């Protein structure tokens, strides 16, 4: 049963993408594997939404589902609604024809992948990538290349040098920024970023993140930022969504989630993250391991690892609780989470 259709209230905010009960399943020979389980969330116009989850928690799937790009043989169900303008008729992304999808992707909703180096054709210059993209979408190439140069400059790259290079001639940070420029060349409204900085060193990560805010303002973007690195994104994102084992655990404004999370998993995650200022003994890895997609627990997916788990948790899926203003938490025992999993609050300083 859809458990949270009502939770994201329309009207109070202005969503650009509404995800409703989205699931992604892989029909394996022996049994179905669910890699995204009934997720509902909004990406609001003009915000940066950080989606945080461990590796294999389904966070990439969420981004892929949002542009109906889940690879075969994965099946995406539920509803993904895209609102090109405030209050306009929604576009049902999962119902689009191939041709409609082709023009939606990159023109309206674009994506940046992890590992920029492998996102470029190794035998083609960066310029070639820009030109073929403009060409494939019937954009004016000359005008588009002007925009590309501006984008590259905004990202502190030398357009001439970068455009004439092959990806292997660029550093990791440069190619990642070039990839961001490429994703924006058709002036999309939404940018989905899948671990865009995972392969970079700390300094480069920070500098790209700081650019992101400016880019967002200048080009009126709404950004979904996927990462495993909670402290990295908490300073950047307006809101955070915590994903555990293919379902959402908690959603709320960044500040609130970091300071006052009501979910045992989010709190455990906050305690586990390495932070430069955190005393070593306060960092505790979460015991146990995340479940396998073909074999998820019945009730709360976190129950096998949760210190607060009760019988109820093991049998029933926890509903959403409004735990604070604009914050919701999927946990039966959200009231006790704070005491059971204490945080050194000064730890996460962003």
């Amino acid at each position, binding site marked *: 049963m859809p458990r949270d259709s009502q939770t994201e209230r329309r009207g109070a905010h202005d969503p650009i993408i509404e995800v409703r009960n989205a699931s992604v399943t*892989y029909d394996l020979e022996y049994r179905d*594997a669910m*890699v995204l389980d009934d997720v509902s969330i909004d990406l609001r116009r003009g915000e940066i939404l950080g989606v945080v*989850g*461990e*590796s*294999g*928690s*389904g*966070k*990439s*799937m969420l981004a892929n589902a949002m542009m109906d790009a889940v*690879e075969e043989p994965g099946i995406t169900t539920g509803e993904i609604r895209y609102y090109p303008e405030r209050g306009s008729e929604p576009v049902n992304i999962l119902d689009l024809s191939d041709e409609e999808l082709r023009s939606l992707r990159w023109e309206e909703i674009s994506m940046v*992948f*992890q590992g920029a180096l492998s996102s470029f054709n190794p035998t083609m210059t960066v310029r070639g990538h820009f030109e073929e993209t403009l060409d494939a979408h019937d954009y004016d190439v000359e005008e588009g290349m002007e925009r590309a140069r501006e984008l590259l400059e905004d990202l502190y790259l030398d357009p001439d040098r970068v455009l004439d290079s092959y990806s292997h001639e660029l550093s990791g940070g440069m190619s990642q920024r070039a990839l961001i420029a490429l994703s924006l060349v058709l002036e999309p409204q939404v940018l989905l970023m*899948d*671990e865009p900085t*995972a*392969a970079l060193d700390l300094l480069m990560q920070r500098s790209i993140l700081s650019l992101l805010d400016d880019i967002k303002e200048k080009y009126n973007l709404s950004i979904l930022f996927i990462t*495993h690195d909670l402290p990295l994104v908490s300073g950047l994102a307006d809101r955070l969504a915590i994903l555990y084992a293919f379902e959402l655990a908690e959603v709320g404004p960044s500040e609130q989630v970091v300071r006052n999370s009501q979910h045992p998993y989010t709190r455990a*995650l906050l305690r*586990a*993250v*390495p932070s430069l200022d955190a005393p070593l003994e306060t960092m505790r*890895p979460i015991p146990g391991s995340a479940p396998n*997609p073909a074999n998820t627990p019945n009730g709360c997916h976190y129950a096998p690892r949760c210190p607060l788990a009760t019988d109820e948790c093991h049998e029933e899926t926890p509903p959403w609780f409004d735990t604070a203003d604009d914050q919701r938490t999927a946990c039966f025992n959200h009231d006790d989470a704070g005491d059971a999993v204490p945080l050194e609050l000064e730890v996460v300083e962003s």
Partner: protein
Amino acid sequence: MSEFERMAEVSMTNAERRRQWLDEAVLAPARIVWDDWRARAGLLVVVTYLLLGTVGPLFVSEPKPNQGPLLVGAFRTLEYPLGTTASGTNILSQIVHATPSMLVMITAGAVFTVVLGTAIGTLAGYKGGQTDSVLMTVTDIMMTVPGLPLTIVLATALQIKGNPAVIGVLITINAWAGLARAIRSQVLTIRDDEYVEASRIMGMSTPTIVAGDIIPNLMPYITMNFVQQARAVIFGSVGLYFLGVLPYNKVNWGVMMNAAVNRAGATSSPSAFHWLLMPMLTIIVLALGLTLLAQGADRIFNPRVRARHAKSVASGDGDTPNTGDI
């Protein structure tokens, strides 16, 4: 090259590492080879030929003229299952008695290529600099010289005798160059791997690092090349024997083909065709066995193939795995 070795801790003792290496580089692949039908079929063929070459001559009488009627066809009589030649020699006898020297030739050629190619490739890749550029220039030159014509010219100019080992080496005279190049580029990628780096920092000598860290990583690749070289020796030697440009002491498969065509006109006369066909089938079956073995080995050893398989299993989520230790 392999994830397993990458994880091997530097702190392990040598004995432990050897044992681990044995398990990962020899036993595990052997088990997997057996699981792959192609590799298994290849292995069976190769073992059959090995038996043919070692104990075969004990059971099959030596070939001589007038063992039977002239030009008996193949599969007609039990006595001469593969037929007889124009002088009444049993073709089966000829094929079996030619096997030992063929095996010597194949082994000699393959060992020569693999040892020289590995040595030069590793040295060039690991040493780098001056050594590298000199060795690679030599390698490039050797690579651009046509192999078989060079063999022919050398065999003629050097007046070599029919020793199969020498001929095996001669056939693969410049085959090591391709292997050396490939090995070098592999070494270049391994050289900067952390565990090799660690060995270097710990002050291990170059030969120790090469023998302990680099060669084991190349083993799969070298094994595959050995098999491919073996095939090249068969093709080359039989071809040149067939042309009659190599000296020989005893009958062999290429000489048989030569005799069949030149003495009995096996290509134009159907009654002698089996004389030509039998040695050809002998080569094809052995080469096919070796190809299957190499293909099967490739699937198991090739990191790309393996990575692809590993990837397709873990395709549920494209996340980087480096979050596991958070």
